[in-house]
């Protein structure tokens, strides 16, 4: 009996003592659950910010110092916040390079030729409310990095303009261009009657690569008038891959006028040429189209892609089946950059590299 009483006496206070001794560990575990949870969220928020900021910045680069300034401003004004979206990001660093692997500089030369890649880094100091009690760290430094830039287009899932121009590499206006085109010159989107006639720039004086009177330049979409009009206005076209045959189609007499509808969607449907359109800054880029370039009959292999600028609204109104339709060559087409700079060639997408 005495032994039993003593044991019970010993037990008195045992739970409180045990709780007191284990409390730091229990609170520490709770602190880990809460503070690490916040760190996990913050890491995701920082990554959101740099991903969004870097793509916005990359879309502003145009090979000029103004483009670099616009990219820096765009990255800094991204609306994403941290700490559950409450705090704005401050001190994000934007740097530039000519490759996706660097080296990076915050002050590229002027003009920043070929500086088509952007890196954005951001770091926040997240206060540690509970872990600070158990360690000397009152804040955790959480950072993220993202790189974006151009990647050449070798195939597209659709979205190209449903006309394919013939390469002029064999009789070039500009031998330095991969297709022989000269920036600023007009080339033929759609050939007139009898299928090899055109009034578009120097195309009219050069050997024609079409051997078929029925192939007038339409491509990349099912052969029906309604589908073609929809493709011209809404860019609903088929996938294409470089070096594969370009799916050219027969003549359509009435759909050329749909180009005018496409031009009318642009907020600047009249300014010409492209340099003036770009300088005015009023256009939304609907007149800038991605055009497949083919190697001519008989298989019309897809040589690559190019950027073309549609002429003014009135240039396409009233065109009939006997008329040719022209567009201005601007060099490169860049997805995500509605009004790209001239001076480069090919077609590119803006890619998030990391």
């Amino acid at each position, binding site marked *: 009996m005495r032994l039993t009483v003593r044991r*019970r006496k010993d037990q008195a206070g045992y739970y*409180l003592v045990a709780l007191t001794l284990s409390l730091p560990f229990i609170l520490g575990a*709770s602190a880990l659950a809460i503070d690490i949870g916040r760190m996990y*969220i913050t890491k995701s928020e920082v990554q959101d910010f740099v991903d969004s900021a870097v793509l*916005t910045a990359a879309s502003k680069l145009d090979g000029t110092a103004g483009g670099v300034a616009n990219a820096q401003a765009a990255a800094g004004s991204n609306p994403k916040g941290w700490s559950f*979206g409450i705090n704005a990001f401050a001190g994000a660093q934007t740097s530039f390079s000519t490759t996706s692997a660097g080296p990076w500089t915050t002050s590229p030369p002027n003009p920043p030729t070929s500086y088509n890649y952007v890196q954005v880094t951001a770091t926040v100091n997240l206060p540690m409310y509970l872990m600070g009690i158990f360690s000397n760290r009152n804040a955790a430094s959480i950072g993220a990095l993202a790189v974006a830039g151009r990647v050449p287009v070798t195939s597209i899932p659709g979205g190209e303009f449903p006309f394919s121009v013939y390469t002029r590499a064999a009789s070039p206006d500009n031998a330095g261009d991969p297709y022989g085109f000269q920036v600023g010159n007009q080339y033929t989107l759609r050939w007139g009657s009898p299928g090899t006639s055109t009034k578009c720039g120097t195309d009219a004086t050069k050997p024609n690569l079409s051997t078929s009177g029925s192939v007038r330049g339409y491509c990349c979409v099912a052969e029906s008038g309604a589908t073609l009009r929809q493709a011209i*206005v809404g*860019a609903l076209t088929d996938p294409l891959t470089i070096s594969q045959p370009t799916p050219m189609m027969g003549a359509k007499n009435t759909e050329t006028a749909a180009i005018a509808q496409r031009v009318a969607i642009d907020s600047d449907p009249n300014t010409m040429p492209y340099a003036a359109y770009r300088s005015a800054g009023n256009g*939304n880029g609907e007149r800038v189209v991605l055009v497949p370039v083919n190697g001519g009959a008989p298989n019309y292999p897809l040589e690559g892609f190019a950027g073309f600028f549609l002429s003014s609204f009135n240039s396409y109104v009233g065109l009939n089946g006997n008329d040719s339709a022209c567009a201005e060559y601007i060099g490169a087409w860049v997805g*995500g950059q509605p009004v790209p700079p001239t001076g480069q060639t090919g077609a590119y997408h803006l890619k998030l590299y990391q």
Partner: protein
Amino acid sequence: MMPMRPTALRGSVMIEFTLTVTFLVLLLLGAWQFGYAFFVYAELDQAVRAGARYASLRTYDSGTATPSAAFLTAVQNEVVYGNSAGGGNPIVPSLTAANVTLSVTFTNAAPTAVAVAITNFPISALFTSVTLSNKPACQFPYQGVFGPP
């Protein structure tokens, strides 16, 4: 000092045990509640990022800042189910398409940015429920093809 009677001792131990266990259970449940809420929020944050990125690349088939029903549904499915076709389980319980908002910024009559956010979504845990309003949110510049009808 009079020694404590055995019955009193038993009661004392019971009270200590009850207080201790109650404290511990509340502490652990509180930690679980915070942890669960943070987990759900982090999942939603990643989902809106994926949804906004998807929206920024998909062909925009409306002529105004109001997206077409097909565009909106595809983006909402991307956020809720992780695929634009829909189907499967939501990434977090009880999340529906109605909780996903899509805002399209138009500049010069063309889309230039898309933003996706979670709204009116309650994170229900043990003790309380927190309703998210316009967060988490994520915005990307529009990079797709503008193809109005």
